[in-house]
């Protein structure tokens, strides 16, 4: 009896041993495959960025950054006006989109959403809105462009202009801002809200004094993300901003002229250069400036994401 038992025990031990070798083998294969996938993905990205930067570096100098494009088929001149136009358009679009998007996000989470314990009809409406926002975030940007063209450029008569482009751009980034605002608010612990309300504060005081400050880094991340979206967008602005490479009028001294002036962002400039001119090197130079801008923006996002962590841990 005893020997039978021992024998059985030895058998299982032997089985386990052979099985262990097999499991190690599978582990190594899985690790190898995943490592290769990761390496290829990173290498491709690095190759793209390195190519654009090295090609661009040949034309980027102070003069390229500070002279205007000369226009025409040769693509001569620099890119100064496009940097300025991009900056103006980004600021104008964010001024329009941020209050709307942040406000909508606050409403959805704090007043209509799970934090308020709503139910029934309101909950259904909120989930429909949320579905709509998520769908809009996935719509191709040219759709927003066509919408902007139909509504702002033609129907409302704004023409190809900063204001048309900013309004259409705001439509494009609104879903981004709403969603990041919602996510930032949802990371704020419920106990903060309860703690504040239990002291006899109104809901708005709770939101303004406790919830928003705690969520601010996340909200700012959403804004910065939108800035990146606007900088790299071409389709929307192609059909709403026109392509004028002239310097836009000053928004402070000539606000009216500024709003109705057309313009050309860096991404649009890149598109025109690559499509209509032979100045491929300058297209690369513009592309390099764009890539550097986006990298800087992502660094900024990292910074703010770290801040929100630290803030919530009390550092």
């Amino acid at each position, binding site marked *: 009896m005893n020997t039978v038992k021992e024998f059985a025990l030895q058998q299982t031990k032997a089985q386990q041993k052979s099985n262990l070798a097999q499991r190690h083998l599978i582990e190594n294969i899985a690790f190898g495959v995943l490592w290769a996938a990761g390496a290829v993905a990173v290498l491709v990205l690095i190759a793209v960025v390195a190519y654009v930067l090295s090609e661009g570096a040949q034309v980027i100098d102070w003069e390229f950054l500070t002279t205007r494009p000369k226009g025409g088929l040769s693509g001569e001149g620099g890119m100064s006006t496009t940097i300025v136009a991009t900056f103006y358009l980004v600021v104008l679009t964010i001024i329009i989109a941020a209050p709307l998007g942040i406000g909508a996000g606050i409403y959805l989470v704090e007043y209509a959403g799970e*934090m*308020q*314990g*709503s*139910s029934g009809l309101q*909950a259904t409406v909120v989930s429909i809105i949320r579905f709509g926002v998520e769908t809009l975030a996935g719509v191709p940007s040219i759709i927003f462009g066509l919408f902007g063209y139909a509504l702002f450029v033609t129907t409302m008569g704004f023409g190809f202009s900063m204001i048309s482009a900013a309004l259409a751009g705001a439509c494009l980034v609104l879903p981004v801002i709403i969603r990041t605002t919602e996510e930032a608010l949802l990371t704020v*612990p419920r*106990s*903060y809200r*309860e*703690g*504040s*309300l*239990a*002291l*006899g*504060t*109104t809901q708005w*005081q709770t939101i303004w*004094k*406790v919830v928003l*400050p*705690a969520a601010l880094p996340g909200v700012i991340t959403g804004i910065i993300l939108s800035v990146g979206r606007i900088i790299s967008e071409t389709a929307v602005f192609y059909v709403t901003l026109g392509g004028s490479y002239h310097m836009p009028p000053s928004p402070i001294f000539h606000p009216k002229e500024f709003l109705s002036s057309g313009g050309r962002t860096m991404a649009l400039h890149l598109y025109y250069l690559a499509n209509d001119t032979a100045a491929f090197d300058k297209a690369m130079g513009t592309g390099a400036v764009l890539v550097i801008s986006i990298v800087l923006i992502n660094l900024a996002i990292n910074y703010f994401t770290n801040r929100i962590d630290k*803030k*919530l*841990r*009390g*550092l």
Partner: protein
Amino acid sequence: MTGSAILKTNGFNLYYGSFKALEDINIDIPENQVTAIIGPSGCGKSTFLRTFNRMNDLIPNVKVEGKIKMADQDIFDMDVVELRRRIGMVFQRPNPFPKSIFDNVTYGPRANGLRDRAKLEEIAERSLRGAAIWDEVKDDLNKSGLALSGGQQQRLCIARALAVEPEVILMDEPASALDPIATLRIEELIRSLKEQYTIVIVTHNMQQAARVSDYTAFFYTDESRTGILVEFALTKEIFTNPKDKRTEDYITGRFG
């Protein structure tokens, strides 16, 4: 019963949707005393506590029946913001805001519109002293409230509640997330606070109820999961001479 009742509950029922969580609760909370609410998990004692400052308003589908009066005013007719100013709350997990100690304590008075810096400083000191944490934090009121230890955070939250000068302080298992020494300090604090405040404390810990409270309410639930009030009496009575068999079983540790 000595003294007068500050909160009077009459025929109170509470529902989550169609589920009856509390049935026919009748209890008078005596003023300037510590009242402990004990009972097994899921008997609705925390839910009942959160009724007094209407924190249950934040939960969907909660419906209440019956009356709860504070100084002859029905709390369900009162402005909820004013009600919560008068009935403070300390939560199970310390929940200081991600702000400085000073900003945590003065948060309530500021929300009520007080701007005078000198007055705010006075309130901060008085409240922090009242919560027995002043000596530990007085040198660095600008430190984040989150940088304190768990026990200190909880006392900061008590100070924050004291700063708006409530009449009643509700405590929802205030020491359950703390170590024994921090727990002891909170218990000492509770005993000293009853000079000025009425305290209602929910606790899982029967020794704690026996140590800190003057009155004890025993809540109970059976298979129906509907919570009922079995017995409410002087703490001494409850622990030495319970009238109900279920109370006796619970306090002698036969279940729960």
